[in-house]
Every structure is written in C-alpha cells, then in structure tokens.
C-alpha cells in the first residue's frame, strides 16, 4: 500500500484508522477526546481524523463508557463498523455488560442474523505511577468470553496490521495497546496482520518464551542476554490472545521442550494458565520440564516506584526464570 516507514505505535494506529476510514465510509470512531477539538485523543492516536472525516463519523463523547460501547454496537447493527475507545483498560469495567453480554453474544443469540463488527481500543500498563485503577491488563476476562477476539500488538508494524484486520473483522475485537510501547519507532509495512496468527519474534532452540504486548520486548531483551550465557531462546509473540495460535505455540514448545509464559497481568488465573494447560496436555511426555509462568504480583498495581517495578515481570526476572528452567 504505502512504502515502509519508521514510525511509532501512535502514528501507526493513527494511519491504520485513517486508511480504514478512507477506504470504507462505514468505518466510524467514537470515544472520549477522540476529536481534534479535544486534541485527537489523550495520546493523539486519532489526531486529524475528525477534521478529515467529520464529527459525524468521529464523535468525541461525554464520559459514558456504557453508551460509548452501546453506540458502537448499535451503529454496527445498523451496518457500520465503529471503533469505540475506552481510554484505559480499567474503564472497560464500566462497559462490561455492553462488551460481554451484548457485543460478544448478539451474533450467537440472534442465530447469526446480526453481527457486531466493532473494535474496542484501549490502552494500559504499569510503570507510569498511575496506581491501582489505571494500570491493569485484563485480557483474561475477555479471552474467557466467547464471541469477542482479543489482540495486543508488541510493535508498530503489528499495531497497524492488526488494527486494519480488526476493523475488517466481522466480529468484535478488543484491541489492547501498551502505553509503554507507544513511543518506540519501528518499521511499518502497512500490511494487514491476520487475527489468530502468532509470530516467532526470535528463533531459538533451548526455551520458548510466549509473550504479548510490552512483554515481548522484555522477552527479546532477556533472550539476547541469555544468548551471551549460551542459552538459545525462542520468543513467540502471541499478537492475538483469543483465539490464540495453538499451532505456532505448540510447534515451538515441542521443538524446545521448555516453555515460559510471560504477561504483565496478574499471574493467577491469567491467560498463561490456559496456554500452559493446553501445552501440558497436548505435549504430555514431550516436555523437558514443567511449563513455567511469570506474571504480575497478586495485588493491585501499587503507586510507589519500587513496588510498581516489583509488581510486573522485568527482563531480569525473565532471565532468572529461564536460567532456573535450564537448571
């Protein structure tokens, strides 16, 4: 489409939505602050869009998360493809009924007569001293909900590609953005990235690390450090959390025989539990050791820096975990 550009995730998302709105007049955007009058979004992802496509297609809303998602659902029932922004992931709690009882279920409950091709954009992540109500990764809740897909890009190229795919998808997609991952530039090829396909971000032979969103960068950092220590790590970037790519993950796990799953979300009952259970069951007798998991601490995200840093897995924790697995 366009030639490769070196841009950050904010710019990549802005272009993905821009290109989608230009290509299809049915694509809409709504949420708090998304219009240019409000500076095009709290981090600027929608900058320029209301000016370009008009405030009927790009609506800055009141603080009303239930109505934001409800309006996106209704517009999609009316033949549109609405992107609804929930500023931070913790605020999806306000719209849980709309997301899980409605967006995810209307196709099934209507026997396939209606569909809800919406995208729910949201950002999250600890590390910004935002405390307990502004930092949670809650992907496990939605992955447990049949009828909605969940994606979480780790780099600008996937952010662009997954956003294009999410908008074109005929089912609701929860699109999780890492605040910490917004600013690092990377090459963007402007290709759609298929939902449901993981990516081997780094090939290796001793251990497989399964990660998504910001944790992929940490895993890659740990991998190069471990290489120096003579441990060859394969990093699988899930990209899509639900439905997750069993083939790619199982193939890598079978190849290395050792698996570490890493996510920033609280470890207990997180998505690593499902992926680990499937690996343990499918590869019974073929693993060299138990599947290991790293995740957020079992508490709310703390404000104070040392606690906040200790809350989420760091590259050093990944290195230590892998070394322990190698015994």
């Amino acid at each position: 489409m366009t030639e490769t550009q070196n841009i950050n995730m904010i710019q990549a998302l802005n272009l993905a939505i821009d290109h989608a709105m230009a290509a299809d007049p049915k694509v809409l955007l709504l949420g708090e602050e998304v219009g240019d009058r409000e500076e095009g979004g709290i981090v600027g992802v929608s900058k320029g869009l209301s000016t370009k496509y008009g405030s009927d297609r790009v609506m800055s809303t009141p603080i009303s998360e239930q109505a934001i998602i409800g309006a996106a659902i209704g517009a999609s029932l009316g033949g549109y493809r609405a992107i609804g922004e929930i500023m931070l992931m913790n605020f999806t709690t306000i719209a849980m009924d709309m997301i899980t009882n409605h967006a995810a279920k209307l196709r099934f409950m209507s026997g396939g007569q209606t569909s809800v091709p919406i995208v729910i954009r949201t950002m999250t992540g600890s590390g910004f001293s935002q405390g307990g109500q502004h930092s949670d990764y809650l992907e496990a809740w939605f992955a447990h909900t049949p009828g909605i897909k969940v994606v979480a890009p780790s780099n600008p190229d996937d952010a662009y590609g997954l956003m294009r795919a999410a908008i074109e998808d005929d089912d609701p997609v929860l699109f999780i953005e890492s605040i910490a991952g917004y600013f690092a530039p990377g090459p963007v090829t402007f290709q759609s990235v298929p939902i449901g396909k993981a990516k081997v971000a780094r090939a290796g032979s001793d251990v497989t690390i399964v990660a998504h969103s910001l944790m992929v960068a940490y895993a890659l950092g740990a991998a190069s450090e471990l290489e120096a220590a003579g441990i060859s790590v394969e990093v699988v970037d899930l990209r899509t959390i639900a439905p997750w790519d069993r083939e790619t993950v199982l193939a890598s796990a079978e190849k290395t025989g050792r698996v570490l799953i890493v996510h920033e979300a609280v470890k207990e009952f997180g998505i690593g539990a499902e992926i680990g259970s499937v690996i343990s069951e499918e590869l019974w007798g073929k693993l060299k050791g138990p599947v290991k998991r790293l995740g957020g601490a079992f508490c709310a995200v703390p404000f104070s820096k040392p606690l906040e840093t200790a809350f989420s897995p760091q590259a050093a924790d990944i290195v230590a975990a892998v070394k322990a697995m190698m015994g």
Partner: protein
Amino acid sequence: MSNYPKADGATLLEIYKKAALIKRNDEHVIKQIMSGRLVSPFYSSRGQEIIPSAISVSLRDEDYLSTIYRGTHDMVAKGFPLGIMWAELLGRVTGSCKGKGGPMHLTHPASGCMVTTGIVGSSMPIATGLGWAAKLDGKGCVSIANFGDGASNIGAFHESLNMAALFQLPVIFVCQNNRYAEHTSFTNSTRVEKISTRAAGYGMPGVTVNGNDADEMYGAAKVAIDRARAGEGPTLIEAITFRFNGHLIGDAGGYIPKDEMAAAKAADPVPALRARIVADGIASDEQLAALEADFQKQIEVACEAAFVADLPDIAELKRDVFAHDIA
C-alpha cells in the same frame, strides 16, 4: 394533550388490529404454558398492547426497534412474523434465531427488530447507536428504545439519553411504565413522580401520556417520530400502563394490591378501543370479529407449526459464535 395530532378512523383501526393480534398472541402463549405443553419463561405484555400499536402505525420497516424480554408486543406491532416468533419461543431451528436466543433475545432485522435484551436498561445504549446509524444514513429513519419503569433507574438510561440529546440522534425513548419492576412498585423505586421529568436534565423533550389511550399514545409518538425524522433530536415518552400478569408467567403477583389489579383489568385497553371503534362506526362488531377470528387462526397455525418443527442440531454450538464456524 389536546394539541397532539389525532388518529383518524383508519389509523385507529390499524392500531386496534395490531393490539388485537398482540393480545391474542400473548394469551395463546400463556395457554400453552398453562396447559403444560410449553415449559419456558414468558414475560407477558398483556395490558400494554396499545403502546407499540399506536407507535408502530407511524413507523416504517426500516425504522429500528430495540426492546426487552417483555417485548413480543413491540415486535408483533413492528411486524415480526408470527411463525418464526413462535418457533423461537419453542427453541426450534426454524425460529428467527434458530432457537439459540429464545424469548429474551427475539431478533428479526428484516422487520427492524434489531435487538432484544434480557439486561435491564441495555436496550437504550444500543438504540442510541442505531440512532447514530440512522442519522448517518440520512434517510430519515428513527430508532425506538423500549424499556420499563425499573430500567429508568439504571445508569445506562442516563448515559444514553444524555448522549442521544447531545448528538441530536433520532431516538425515541419509550418508557413503558407498568408500575412494577419485578416485585418492586414504581413508587418504591424512585421519589420522582414522572420519569419524563428527567428529560429536562438532558435538554430533551419529555412527556408522560396514558399509554393505554390510543389517541394520546399515537399523538405523542407521532410528534416524537416526526421530530426525529426531521433531525430535531430525541424524545423521552413515558407511557403509563399496567402489566396484567406477573413479572413472568408463574409469578402470582401477590405484591400487587388486589384492587389495583382489578381496576387495571377493568380498564383493559384492548376491548376499550374495540368498543370505541364500533361506537364511532369505524368498523362493525362483525367486521372486527372476522379480523379477530383470522388473527386467531394465524396464531394457531404459527403455534402448531412450531410444535412440529425440528430442534437445532448440537453442531449449532459451534456456529454463530464468530462469523466463521469454530472447528
């Protein structure tokens, strides 16, 4: 309410036809349940027939309807075919939702019945989005949001009315105030005497009408629908009515004072409208009897066809979760 447009004879007859069909249809469902032939939850709308009948005569197929578990009256009035409605109520694969939705999720986009929800209040945010779609389409279509008195106390009501008013969306919020929310009387759910009072808090017109009076209901709905079609924004209509049966069939309604129920039933709006139509010479008793007999036949045909129709195959569990079947 005298400054409302009046319904002419032909219109009154149309309203009566819809109400008579709804009443008989509702009674026939209850008959199947009482006889033990049908075992299923059913939320009767007996007593509330005039409201959707008087609204629908001003609607087109393309206008959107969002309603609730207690919504067969709204949907029959809007044109939901009886055959696939009955099949859905019986969980048959021939039902509008292939039996997957049931009484709480009846859906039929072709007649504009876009969503039926079992979550109190949730018809409103979605109807707001359908109003956004209608506005964008620019064809003068409107979106009707049905909900109850109890639903007017939940947050979704507030967010939806404020958003619809802010964006001047063509939505008509129809609060069918039947004086009870499950076992809770209206006066025990709020201190405000008229729900319509709340419209002022959103900068939208709000009226309270006797929903059982065809003239008043028709007039108020016509004014609101015309305003919406003309791009003048939403209206809140509180239609006072009464629920003749319990919350659902099986609920004896012991919490409703006997005299209150007796008075309501004595003022049954359907025979009242019938008597008036005959008295005004709009149609003769014989003509109406013929219509009613025909309705009864249609209902019985739909009911019997449903009873002999197939139940869905278990493979349906993997269909309609997403656009593509699950492996």
